[in-house]
């Protein structure tokens, strides 16, 4: 089934998946060292396949909101790795002439709500705007299993269905919302049944199998772009780390994390490409070195950007102080 994906795409996916992994690790490294300015860190390690596969199906000006802990994957949508890291460590990207991963309409990034799920309507509104402006832009809007329960996400779906908007909704089910198991919130075996309640198509996919996600997203994106209206994809994956770095994780059953490490999407895809004869040990080492180098340089450049000054910040905002 995957055989019709061009080789360059397959290798691009590999490189991006690896890059995502290494950025996440770099964030952890910077966070652990302290003093960077990051107020906290919610890691996305092990879930990268979802966002990377989505980005591979989108154009630069399509609208896309990943899960909050997967924001760093937006490099695959076109943002520079330097800007990704600079966003995460709260540098003055504006003054540096860069692009924040929080709010950046040029790249289809329309803001990010700290009250999770409140941004659902933003991205659906962009799809409505695209329809009114008669462009072919579509929206992919993703939340975790937790925030997907929120009323504002529901209303955004109702809007997209009623107005037949080009939106692919996704739930990235990493089995936990903070300490709450998703099975304690949803009483159904297949979360994609949520779609049935809105009369739209829905399907679940192995969120740790990047090619499976790639193909499912491709199908739904195509449907949305051709006027087919909204749909839902549920990607089943796992949060390998605590909710935040420092989380004692008393809620985890013993051995669960270890089981899921075995399903890590990165070695899994690497093996697949090797089996397909598309990747050699030498390739792996070369790409690893290139990626590492790229990220190290980006991190260095990002760390060199000053923190925003009060004066610069205030210049960007309106209103009397």
């Amino acid at each position: 089934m995957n055989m019709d994906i061009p080789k360059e795409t397959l290798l691009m996916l590999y490189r991006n998946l690896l890059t995502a992994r290494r950025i996440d690790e770099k964030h952890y490294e910077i966070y652990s060292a302290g003093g960077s300015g990051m107020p906290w860190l919610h890691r996305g390690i092990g879930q990268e396949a979802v966002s990377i596969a989505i980005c591979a199906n989108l154009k630069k000006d399509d609208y896309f909101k990943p899960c909050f802990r997967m924001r760093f994957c937006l490099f695959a949508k076109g943002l520079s790795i330097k800007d990704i890291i600079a966003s995460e460590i709260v540098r003055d990207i504006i003054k540096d002439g860069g692009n924040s991963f929080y709010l950046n309409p040029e790249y289809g990034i329309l803001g990010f709500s700290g009250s999770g799920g409140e941004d659902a309507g933003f991205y659906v509104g962009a799809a409505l705007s695209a329809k009114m402006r008669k462009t072919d832009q579509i929206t992919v809007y993703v939340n975790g299993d937790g925030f997907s329960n929120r009323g504002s996400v529901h209303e955004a779906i109702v809007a997209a269905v009623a107005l037949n908007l080009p939106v692919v909704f996704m739930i990235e089910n990493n089995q936990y919302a903070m300490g709450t198991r998703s099975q304690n919130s949803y009483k159904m075996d297949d979360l994609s049944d949520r779609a049935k309640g809105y009369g739209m198509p829905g399907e679940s996919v192995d969120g740790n199998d990047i090619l499976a996600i790639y193909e499912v997203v491709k199908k739904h994106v195509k449907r949305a772009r051709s006027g087919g209206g909204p749909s839902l994809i549920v990607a089943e994956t796992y949060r390998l780390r605590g909710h935040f770095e420092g989380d004692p994780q008393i809620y985890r059953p013993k051995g669960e994390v270890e089981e899921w490490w075995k399903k890590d999407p990165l070695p899994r895809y690497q093996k697949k490409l090797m089996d397909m004869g598309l990747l050699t040990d030498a390739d792996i080492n070369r790409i690893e070195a290139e990626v590492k180098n790229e990220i190290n340089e980006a991190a260095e450049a990002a760390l060199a950007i000053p923190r925003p000054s009060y004066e610069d910040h205030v210049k960007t905002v309106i209103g009397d102080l």
Partner: protein
Amino acid sequence: MVEYAQTLNYVSAIGTAIMEEMRRDERVVAWGQDLVSMRGTFGDAPGMIDEFGGDRIIDTPIIEQAIAQMAVGAALAGSRPIAYIATAGFLSVCFDTLFMKMGAMRQEFSYKGPMPLVIFCRAGVGGGFGADHCTSTEALFMHTPGLKIVMPSTPYDAKGLMKAAIRDDDPVLFIASGPLYFGTKQFVPVEDYIIPLGQADIKREGTDITIVAWSGMIPKALNAAEILSKDNINAEVVDLRTIVPMDIEAVVKSAKKTGRLLIAHDAMKRGGAAAEIAMKINEVAPDVVANLKTPIRRLAAKNLGLPRNRELEAELVPQIPDVIQIVKEMV
């Protein structure tokens, strides 16, 4: 010379403003509940729904959170949306987006780009329909970062301010006054005019006391002023027109002239806008305050939820006799 060609009521003035802006700029679009199906929202702006309905004016289900949120996304995506939330009381149903996102988000992320959108709603005090339908909520948005608030009291102002709101690159909350919707008609110029946000207007000149008010409180203040004039009390009525940004200079100037300052609003007193205005004047013009003939006072609704009962509501919310009484106490 201004050519007066149309006599419009308040709601039709708003509809006309929106229609003219939709003709001028194709990015201007509107959505909300029953805009098209029931046709009444924009008054009798002629041909509006025939011209734009279903295409650039669309009906949505009862999903206020999405209605407001979609405005944020569409504005960032290049449209200039007008999102209709029927009642100012229902703003609390989509409050997170209004309070934490619409104005605050660009500031949160140091984002310089525009977010041109208008939230259009109607404040309903006067009907006795209960808390949700009648509560005046502007004080909540005064405490909201980055959101402009427009509350006109006449058809002329409503048209000019709606046009300014639509052309503004920041999010604007336009709270129309329900009780004024079908009130006195006014000659409204056919040609294009805007009233810049942040300019108060003296609706009645006077010498003895300044009454600062806006929206539905303006006719009550003017009525009271007429009655007071028979007792030789000459009240000046300052219509703020926009709450944020606020034309505090106009208030100071008037208070300096009359020597007395009353701030009146339909909303509940505790934590209401009057307190902020009074404090602001103390901050920017302590000398003027020091020279007032009597301390600044406020007239506002009792600190209670509005009842489902027109007469009780009228007891809680300031009426013309209440304005007269407090002015007499002050003069």
